[in-house]
């Protein structure tokens, strides 16, 4: 570094400082930056600086065949990739008016819930590390790997499993896989007690998170908060229950809520969600063997597949919140336009800027992690 390049700007004496969080910072999820203006250790103003992961996703999709696009969809949200595949398939099926066989629908629900569980374990690890507890990170990663092993057996990929295609899923489950799913999740359920002792009943964690980053219902609705973050403000809304897709209307599950709207509430909602996920997975495992039939509706030659003209807006619930896609087809073999409305866009930019105002400097990383935003999805 050349010292002459660094010269403090002459300014009237002041106690305000400007600080750059990221993009290369351990307290930042992924490749993302946040600039704050602090006075003492109180943040006066924060400004999100996204775009480090932008790869022109929506433009790339316009240059690929309908079938090729499946391969790049999971790259939008890395910790929780399955909803991206599913929603793309739902959009194409809606445009084609295709009926999906029942077995494929149940398999999709099973995958989505497994992926949600894995994403939550990732989240607890991150939230623990921002409070200085590294054990949840190590445990969460090791337990998440058990789920990734199941995925690997199902479709070959650990994180990016291009398993769903328009019309169904790629292949049927291997022999004995459902028993292994069931025993893995039994094991994971027995682990939850340890997580409670380690994190959620830990006084350090509770005191560090209670009353920080409080979002009330009115603000949450105005800012477009969705998913578990909205449920932490006391509003039980969930696309799975209120606008059911796939077979969620045949499943029985609750929506846990918390009233406080702070970091602790956001963690506890996700913690309570794990039980509901386990309930859904058990129901699917029970129902799946009785549902026979094909796993895939016939699709035309994928290399010359002209999807009828039209437009569609589909939404699903991912582990981050409400995820919606707007896809337009002009009757050709490629999408005319595909737009992603991800939940992280609001959580990582508007909500974070809103919550940063007046927060303490040491809580910024924690607020950021507790919102569970996903930077690749902001940038697309």
């Amino acid at each position, binding site marked *: *570094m*050349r010292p*002459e*390049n*660094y*010269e*403090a*700007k002459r300014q009237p004496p002041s106690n305000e400082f*400007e600080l*750059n969080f990221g*993009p*290369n*910072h*351990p307290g930042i999820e*992924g*490749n993302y930056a946040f*600039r704050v*203006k602090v006075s003492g250790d109180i943040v006066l*103003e924060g*400004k999100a600086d996204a*775009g*480090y*992961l*932008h*790869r*022109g996703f929506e*433009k*790339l999709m316009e*240059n690929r065949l309908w079938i090729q696009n499946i*391969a*790049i969809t999971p*790259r939008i949200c*890395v*910790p929780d990739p399955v909803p991206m595949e599913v929603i793309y398939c739902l959009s194409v099926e809606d445009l084609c008016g295709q009926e999906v066989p029942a077995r494929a629908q149940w398999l999709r629900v099973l995958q989505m819930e497994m992926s949600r569980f894995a994403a939550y374990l*990732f989240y607890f*690890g991150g939230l623990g590390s921002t409070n200085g507890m590294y054990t949840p*990170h*190590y*445990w969460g*990663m*090791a337990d*998440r*790997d058990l789920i*990734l092993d199941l995925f690997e057996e199902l479709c070959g990929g*650990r*994180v*990016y499993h291009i398993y769903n295609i328009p019309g169904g899923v790629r292949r049927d489950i291997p022999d004995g896989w459902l028993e292994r799913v069931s025993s893995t999740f039994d094991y994971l359920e027995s682990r939850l007690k340890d997580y409670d002792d380690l994190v959620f009943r830990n006084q350090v964690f509770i005191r560090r998170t209670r009353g920080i980053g409080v979002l009330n219902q009115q603000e949450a609705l105005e800012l477009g908060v969705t998913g578990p973050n909205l449920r932490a403000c006391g509003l039980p809304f969930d696309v799975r229950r209120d606008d059911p897709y796939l077979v969620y209307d045949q499943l029985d599950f609750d929506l846990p809520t918390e009233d406080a709207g702070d970091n602790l509430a956001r963690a506890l909602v996700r913690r309570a969600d794990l039980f509901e996920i386990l309930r859904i997975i058990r129901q699917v495992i029970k129902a799946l063997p009785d549902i026979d039939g094909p796993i895939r509706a016939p699709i035309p030659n994928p290399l010359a597949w002209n999807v009828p003209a039209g437009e569609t807006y589909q939404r699903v619930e991912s582990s981050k919140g409400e995820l919606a896609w707007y896809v337009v087809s002009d009757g050709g073999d490629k999408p005319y336009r595909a737009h992603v409305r991800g939940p992280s866009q609001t959580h990582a930019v508007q909500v974070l800027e809103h919550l940063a105002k007046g927060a303490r400097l040491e809580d910024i990383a924690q607020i950021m992690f507790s919102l569970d935003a996903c930077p*690749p999805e902001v*940038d697309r």
Partner: protein
Amino acid sequence: MKNLENIPVEQRRRTNPLAHVFDEFMAFCQSRSLFMLHYCTGCGAVELPPVMTSRFDGERLGISPMVSPRQADVLLVTGYVSVKTLKRVILTYEQMPAPKYVVGICSCTVNGGMYWQSYATAKKLSDYMPVDIYIAGCMPRPEAVISGMRDLMEKIRTGKADSWKDYFRNYDHYLGQQQRLFGPKWQTPTDIIGEAEHYGLITKNTRGEHTRLLEEHQKRLEPLEMRL
């Protein structure tokens, strides 16, 4: 006593008969404690936590994450680098102290991967900085990452991992590539030529037309200012 710091490395080796034994010992030590920079550049970064945590456990090999470039040895570029990120990656790379190694994880660093037609990403990482090891895959499994790191350790131990010298020896070429992407006014505040002189690595490719262009534009950086 002579000031050892001022003698170029090559000469030092010739005058001291024990130097190569010492160098080998140093190389062994370096290969056994790699601190990797925790900069999650792309989606491949999601496979790094499993590498470091309980299941695959990179720490038994002496690989552990480090948060600041000044204390790190290995820069992991985990995936696609958009142009905006690439500037930060280069700046980070230049800030790392000298025996430094670059590992390109993921297919996206090799040739652009599935974003080869994207307008926003840089395609080939070795155009912009020298790379020691590539680990292909989309995304590579943790076992692949660990095996790549073991290859790197072997390379360091046998003294073959010297890509960082490349950067000093061919600085003009790398700077030219960077200027092609970021425009002729691109500059980092690091004094690479001064560092190259320090290590005795100046060749005829260190200075050239691009460095001349850089010196033309080299002015004081604007005082860091935040626009809110």
